[in-house]
């Protein structure tokens, strides 16, 4: 597919995501729905990863750029952010090892149980 076709296909998928999001009765982000739609199209082999390569490589390699405007948006909420800086910072910092700890141990336990089940079977 030409780059222009790839852009068109991807934007069309996002448009479909917006449509589904508008119809759903709960606040599901349109962009995540577009991701699910693309995943389904890939799974059904209606699209091959290669066909979107130029467009997806460009977006994924420069992903950081697309986050900049949201960060600069902090200027609009300076006061709200500055007056709650420490709680925001502490919550973000402390929950990270907690998530690591729980996920790691839950997965380790699951792997152990699966192995035991397999050993019993053989």
């Amino acid at each position: 597919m030409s780059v222009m076709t790839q852009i068109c296909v991807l934007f069309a998928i996002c448009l479909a995501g917006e449509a589904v999001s508008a119809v759903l009765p709960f606040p599901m982000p349109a962009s995540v729905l577009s991701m699910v739609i693309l995943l389904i199209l890939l799974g059904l082999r209606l699209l091959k990863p290669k066909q979107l390569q130029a467009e997806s490589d460009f977006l994924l390699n420069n992903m950081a750029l697309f986050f900049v405007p949201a960060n600069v948006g902090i200027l609009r909420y300076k006061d709200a952010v500055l007056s709650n800086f420490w709680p925001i910072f502490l919550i973000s910092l402390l929950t990270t090892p907690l998530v690591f700890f729980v996920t790691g141990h839950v997965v380790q336990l699951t792997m152990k149980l699966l192995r035991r089940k397999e050993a019993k079977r053989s």
Partner: protein
Amino acid sequence: MMEALLSTPLLGLVLCISTYLLGRWLQKKTGWILANPVIVASALCIVILILLDIPYENFALGGDIIHMLLGPVTAVLALGIYNQRAALKAYFVPVLVGCVAGSATSIFSILGLCRLFRLDEAITMALIPKSCTTAIALSVAESHGGLTAVTAFAVLIAGVTGCLCAPLFSKWFHITDPVAQGLATGACSHALGTSKAREMGELQGAMSSIAIGVCGLISVGITLFL
């Protein structure tokens, strides 16, 4: 002349792209984790806007164009999951159980702490998706009325912490299984953590990048019920 510059979206576009390129160059040059293009570009844009006294609304004319592309960026994350489908199939149960546990822990611990610190709804909803990758976290915060700027900041802290500490966390918490190490890294610190997980091993890297997508989807699901 100033009037003309302020009224065109080109101002915001050039500011975002030029500072981003500078940040990317700086990271290549120094290899330092805090010289991350997102941090450098955002900080520079904010400083320039304040110093030159440019109103945010004028920057946003261009900024919104780039922000709109966040949708397609999130959509192509599907390729990341699809490309790892062999590893996903091989470890389907641990991936699913681990990502549900990780996402739920993240969301409910944040919710509890936000209540403890008496933060308002706009900040609470902004912090809740902070373990997800930025693209997904921003859309979740946006659709629940959270301040996206706070989300971006919190996601960054989680990412940098995970990237710096994933090997240490594995040691302290006695996580020795490579599948568990990878999923834990991806669940708590998304894409930035995944770069570290790749250094820890191939299986860790694959598991971490699977966790980004799967945790993102599960977190979106959990937040629907909040």
